[in-house]
């Protein structure tokens, strides 16, 4: 259950960064002095300073909030959409399936970054919600495809026929039988995707359409770090460590989740 612990800690950071940010120094991510710009770690500032001369440790801690919020919102959104679409396509087959599958094809084939840029530029406000919304818009198709596949495998099983035999309607069959039995691979993939989402948030910032300073997020930090990494490597290293640990936590959590909802393994 290491994964759950890691994810819990990260979520705690996201919910109450002020509790952690002050461990080593003043803990105010916005108390900045340009004179300290990009200075390496020193007493009271274990991670050093960012280019604006702000304490990097406090910033990384505060950065969890936006990054985790986006990761969770997006994961939730993509899973919900994917489950709905995957179920409709896999369960009802026929025309529904064909339309949904073609839609998925288009979304998968179209360069997602281009789409995201266009939409975010149109939206003009770039906060956690809009960024998540756009990531959901382009993130669901891959999951939906997986979901459809696993729904297809499940709907042909005998316990679905049995449920139909005792008079269960489509809604009940989908909610009680199909979804619990087919969501496993989606959970795993969603766990795997969390890292990708945080990375994508950063890519959007890099492209100028993501979260923007003074918003504090790992994506924004990495984007800035990227410009300075030859001279100030610490800007890149510390957010990356947090990011990677988070990603690993979510990947393992996805695996654990699949096992947890599978009584056969318990």
């Amino acid at each position, binding site marked *: 259950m290491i994964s759950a612990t890691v994810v819990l800690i990260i979520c705690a950071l996201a919910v109450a960064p002020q509790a952690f940010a002050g461990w080593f120094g003043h803990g105010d991510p*916005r108390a*900045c002095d*340009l*004179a*300290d*710009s990009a200075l390496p770690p020193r007493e009271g500032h274990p991670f050093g300073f960012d*280019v*604006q*001369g*702000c304490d990097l440790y406090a910033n990384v801690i505060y950065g969890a909030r936006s990054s985790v919020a986006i990761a969770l919102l997006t994961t939730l959104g993509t899973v919900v959409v994917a489950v709905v679409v995957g179920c409709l396509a896999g369960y009802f087959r026929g025309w529904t399936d064909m339309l949904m599958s073609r839609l998925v094809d288009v979304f998968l084939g179209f360069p997602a970054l281009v789409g995201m840029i266009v939409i975010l*530029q149109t939206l*003009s406000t770039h906060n956690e919600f809009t960024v998540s919304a756009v990531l959901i818009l382009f993130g669901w198709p891959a999951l939906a495809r997986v979901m459809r596949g696993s729904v297809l495998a499940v709907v042909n099983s005998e316990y679905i026929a049995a449920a139909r035999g005792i008079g269960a309607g489509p809604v009940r069959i989908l909610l009680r039988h199909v979804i619990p039995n087919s969501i496993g691979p989606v959970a795993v993939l969603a766990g795997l995707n969390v890292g990708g989402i945080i990375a994508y948030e950063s890519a959007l910032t890099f492209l*100028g359409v993501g979260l*923007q*300073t*003074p918003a504090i997020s790992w994506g924004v930090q990495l984007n*800035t770090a990227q*410009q*300075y990494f*030859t*001279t100030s490597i610490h800007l890149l290293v510390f957010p990356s460590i947090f990011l990677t640990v988070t990603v690993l936590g979510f990947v393992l959590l996805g695996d654990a989740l699949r096992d947890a909802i599978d009584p056969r393994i318990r």
Partner: protein
Amino acid sequence: ACGGTATQDSGDGGGAGGAKTFSIGVTSYFVSHFTPGQSGGSNIDYAVFTPLTAVDSASGQARNAVAESIESEDNKVWTIKIKKGWTFHNGEEVTAQSFADSWNATAYGPNAMTNNYLFADFEGYADLNPAEGEPKTKTLSGVEVVDTHTLKVTLTKPLSLLPYILAQSTFAPMPKAAFTDLKAFDAKPIGNGPYQVTGEGRTTGATKITLQRYDKYAGELKGDAETVEVKSYQDEVAAYRDFQAGAVDVTLVGGNNLTNAATRYKDQLVQVPFPAVIYLGFPLWDKRFEDIKVRQAFSLAVDRDAIVKSLLRGFGQPAKGLAGSTIPGGGAQDCEFCSLDVARAKSLLAEAGGWSGPLKLWTYQDPVNTTILEAVSNQLRTNLGIETITTGTQPVDQLYPNLTAHKIDGPFLLYMGAGYPHLYALADQLFTKGSGTNVTGYDDEEFASLLRKAAAAEPDQAMGLAQEATRTAMAAVPLSPLFQPVGGLVHSKKLSNVTPEFLGGARIAAIKVN
């Protein structure tokens, strides 16, 4: 640089008997158009074309290039004599007609050349660009070919700075051959400059253009290298990386890489102060900024020295006035509120009734701009105690229309370069009502009349009048200059005499290959 890969032969340029050659990295914007009417005035443009005049970067004076003489009685009607013996790369002679053809093409509205506006002060411009419908004529009535080597130019109002204006690549001549296929010309121009474009020129999808020295060049500054390879990059960062890998011999560096270059390539870095200003503009249409004291307070709360020293690692000049000393007429300390004075800022803001509510600062999408804007917002927060500061960015094509439409709700960080090296140009662009780049909405009759006077005056008086006009404008604090940017030209060891062109790129013809 470190060991490059085998793909680049830039290292053996000086090899025994080998032809002198080097490669130069530029951003793709520099080579997007070659037609004078559309070109951006990059160093490549000046390698391929030579206009009538050139601005001496040392003295800041306009010198004759293709022009033999440029004279006027009233600064309105000008007689331009052209030197003999100049030829285009295809051998065609450069005549008065070559200039007239080029100018007419640009000024002709339906051609939709981007530099069209530069001819707005020429007589007949209105006929070529009617408010509605097709123009009836195709030539500027203000440009008259007197004989093969004499041009008569008539302006709509006196403008003593014409020789400066004519130094821009837009005013370069075009040969007859150009007009058979303007598209082809744009990709592979036939100019009259020290270098000619060989091969297919600029092709879609290629990142390389080869220049070859034009041996019959009639100008003073003949190129040293026989061939020059121009490589285009997405941005300066990419070009600098290639330079580090040894794939490029000279390139412009900016932003964060300047620091890196300054330490790694100490003796190979040429600093280039840009004739431009980075400023914080105030939305004069916004009620909250109506009170000049608010604007003054904001201006006083920004620590320009810290930004330049820490963020820019010293590459920049903290602004004391609108224009830096690199611009003719600049260097004056005409900004009273350009030094950090927190106490005064606070009291001024308090006098104006303090600040309440959110504050949003704007700039266009650009990594350096956003970093600086963030620093400014941090300082405003700390020094003025405005807690709810956010920043926003928009793409250029949204930000400018929104500024003109007065839809931006906060101060904005912008960059303004002088159209040509003269304080007049900068002041005109920033403060004249109706100018496309006067985004603060500043409008003042006293300033306008001073500037009109400057335009009509003789060069020596013009400067003083322009400075006076600038002082007038600055006193009203429609904007607060932050610093004058500095760039750098970094070059490999085999090159010497690397000097900047007006826009910052290396002056190609001047570069010596060892």
